[in-house]
């Protein structure tokens, strides 16, 4: 399951999505919106995605992960729109028969997602707003 959704997401739903016979380990990663970033107080966060390409890229990353580790199933949900502070913006789950596979594959998924998934975060802070990662962001 790879999806971009405009609603609250939970770890239990991604972990249920990777359950199947023979699974002995499930690793998950949740990105949570922080109330402070680089010393400034964050007021709210909004995410925007290119959903069709985001899903295609996540499937591609998962294919690479399957080549590196003995993985059963992988699920990724990324939330878009406004994400209230302290809530989950992304949830990843990876299942495997043995624990040596699920955790590093989960790490790989979040690292690659951050590099290639066409998803953008806009931060609203006291006194301004900025698209994180853009050159405009460097000015602050």
């Amino acid at each position, binding site marked *: 399951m790879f999806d971009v959704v405009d609603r609250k997401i939970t770890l239990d739903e991604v972990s249920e999505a990777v359950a199947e016979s023979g699974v002995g380990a499930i690793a998950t990663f949740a990105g949570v919106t922080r109330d402070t970033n680089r010393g400034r107080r964050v007021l709210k966060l909004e995410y925007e995605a290119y959903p069709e390409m985001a899903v295609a890229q996540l499937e591609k990353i998962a294919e690479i992960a399957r080549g590196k580790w003995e993985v059963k199933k992988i699920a990724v949900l990324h939330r878009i729109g406004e994400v209230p502070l302290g809530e989950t913006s992304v949830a990843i789950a990876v299942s495997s028969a043995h624990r040596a596979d699920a955790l590093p594959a989960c790490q790989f998924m979040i690292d690659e997602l951050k590099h290639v998934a*066409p998803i953008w975060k806009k931060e609203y802070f006291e006194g301004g707003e900025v698209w994180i990662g853009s050159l405009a962001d460097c000015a602050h």
Partner: protein
Amino acid sequence: MKVRVLYFGIVRERLGVGSEVYELEDGATVGDFQCGLTVRLGNDNVGAGTVRVAVNREYVDSSYPLSENDEVAVIPPVSGG
């Protein structure tokens, strides 16, 4: 030829548009498209040089030849997660 162009994030905001149909000469490459984009984004600090381009949902480089009806997406630095 005509391609459909999608803009996201800071580029979408600066251009004030999320998608448009773009007219290019036959045989144009992604690089040709990028030249026009840089002119439009001008001197503001969006950093047109740092955007990537995807065609039909795959990242491509500037030598990639465009075709009629391609879905061309302008991808500013991503910050998902």
